[in-house]
């Protein structure tokens, strides 16, 4: 989509600019621009209690109100910490024009893909596991996330938790998904409808995993499962997840929990396999010494067993001889 440049230029606020709400009269001081989407600009701002918040401003009243409604509904979903919490909504009047904005929690962290690139692919599994837990909670409340993609995901820094910064695609199960990104959209790949169901999100999760190995993504050729499968098989890091990815892409997982369990299983096995050979090269001389000691220990440990056998045999022979002697005496 062509970016709405008029919005960008007309309402670009420099650091220090104060945004004051028409209804609630709260003031926010702009610190910097965080991002610019199709529906508006997000600023990092400071409220009157010196707290950092994220403030989204738009000249298109419609889409921002829908988003605000979703964010509010999202905040009510218990146990889900995926999205930012909603704070307030208001209007900012500039030159007589109403500009609706809303204020939400500022989530500090690093983008999903840059994080993976910096910290390594090993994090993919863990983060996907976290993501699946959050999705499971959301699905149980009757919603799906819709527009799941790395650009919308943030890894918070001291705690390494995966969070979502744009909840605009969140849709009630059974309704149509309105906001999506082609690469992560089941419909684009011809793998299903755009009706919201848990499988829609799980497809996107699988595509996020593919995206972390193909940072530039790839475009649809013949589409369908065959192309996705081929792309998956070209990267060896997907080998342990092959079955899981296939199931997620073809909509075979009914719940996020199922996928999470399989994922946890593979991760567990994966790390076991990895840690076993890793221990060997570092402690090789120690290991042999230990082994020898263990051997001798085994011999000493075996001794009482032999002693028992010896005693038993001795008693058996003696009693046998004694029986023979008694038998002889009796005759």
């Amino acid at each position, binding site marked *: 989509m062509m970016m709405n440049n008029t919005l960008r230029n007309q309402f670009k606020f420099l650091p220090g600019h104060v945004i004051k709400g028409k209804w609630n009269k709260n003031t926010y001081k702009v610190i910097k621009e965080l991002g610019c989407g199709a529906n508006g600009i997000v600023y990092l701002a400071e409220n009157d209690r010196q707290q950092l918040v994220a403030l989204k401003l738009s000249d298109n009243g419609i889409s921002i*109100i829908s988003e605000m409604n979703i964010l509010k509904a999202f905040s009510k979903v218990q146990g889900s910490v995926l999205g930012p919490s909603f704070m307030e909504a208001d209007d900012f009047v500039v030159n007589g024009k109403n500009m609706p904005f809303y204020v939400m929690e500022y989530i500090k962290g690093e983008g999903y893909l840059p994080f993976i690139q910096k910290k390594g692919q090993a994090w993919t599994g863990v983060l996907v596991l976290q993501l699946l837990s959050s999705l499971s909670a959301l699905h149980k409340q009757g919603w799906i996330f819709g527009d799941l993609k790395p650009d919308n995901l943030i890894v918070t820094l001291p705690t390494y938790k995966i969070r979502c910064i744009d909840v605009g695609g969140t849709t009630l199960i*059974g*309704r*149509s998904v*309105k906001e999506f990104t082609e690469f992560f959209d089941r419909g684009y790949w011809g793998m299903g409808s*755009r009706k919201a169901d848990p499988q829609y999100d799980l497809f996107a999760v699988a595509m996020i995993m593919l995206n972390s190995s193909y940072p530039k993504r790839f475009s649809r050729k013949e589409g369908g499962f065959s192309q996705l499968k081929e792309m998956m098989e070209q990267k060896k890091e997907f080998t342990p997840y092959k079955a899981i990815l296939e199931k997620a892409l073809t909509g075979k997982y009914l719940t996020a929990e199922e996928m999470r369990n399989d994922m946890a299983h593979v991760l567990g096995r994966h790390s076991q396999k990895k840690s076993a050979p890793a221990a060997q090269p570092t402690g090789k001389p120690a290991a042999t010494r230990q082994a020898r000691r263990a051997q001798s220990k085994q011999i000493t440990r075996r001794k009482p067993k032999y002693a028992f056998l010896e005693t038993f045999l001795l008693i058996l022979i003696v009693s046998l001889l004694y029986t023979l002697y008694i038998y002889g005496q009796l005759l």
Partner: protein
Amino acid sequence: MKPGTLRQILLITDGCSNQGEDPAAMAALAREQGITVNVIGVMENDVIDDKGMQEIESIANCGGGVSQIVYSQQLSQTVQMVTRKAMTQTIQGVVNKELQQILGNSVTMEDLPPEKRGEVMEVVDELGETSNLEVLILVDTSASMKLKLPTVKDALLDLSLSMNARLGNNQFSVFVFPGKKNDVEKLLDWTPKLEVLTRVFPKLTTGGITPTGPAITEALDYFNKKRSLRGLLSHDDEQYFEESI
């Protein structure tokens, strides 16, 4: 509020009309009849000139719809976005009218406090999901469009995918201009699914002229025929959203 039927004409073109009546005037006529006209200008390696841009904008303005100029790669996303945006606009127009009846003449959604606005918006979203939709698609098949037609086909399939995920019913119909014999030719009659296009589209031939005005006129006729036919057959009291923005 009972879901009604939203009616739209979607014009996909890549330049200026050069034959027949003024398309903007025809779009205004459509608006009068409660039909919204949306226009998408498609570019590939070429650029749409100022005159073409102006025409695209004025057709959408007069037709009460949305216009957008895009490169063909982004066509799929744009087609569904434009359709949805125009739906919301129309519904919002209806809702604003109702609000004015309740709260006084000059009140619109924007004048409500954010909380109330959110509640009204929920109603608008609900209607967008549940109302029925009829889209008549007009595809420019003048010579310069030849290479863009496969992309147009994909975008239309994508549109039917998006719209059919809604709870409301959909009807699509496709016309091309110029046609083989006439200015405008019907390619596909009213149908909820556009998959048939995969077979029909590759056979299309492209022509030289761009009779955009006559195409919109024909589209209007076709809409009216459908309405009167349905009225005759079923006498159903289906309400139409009378557009009012």
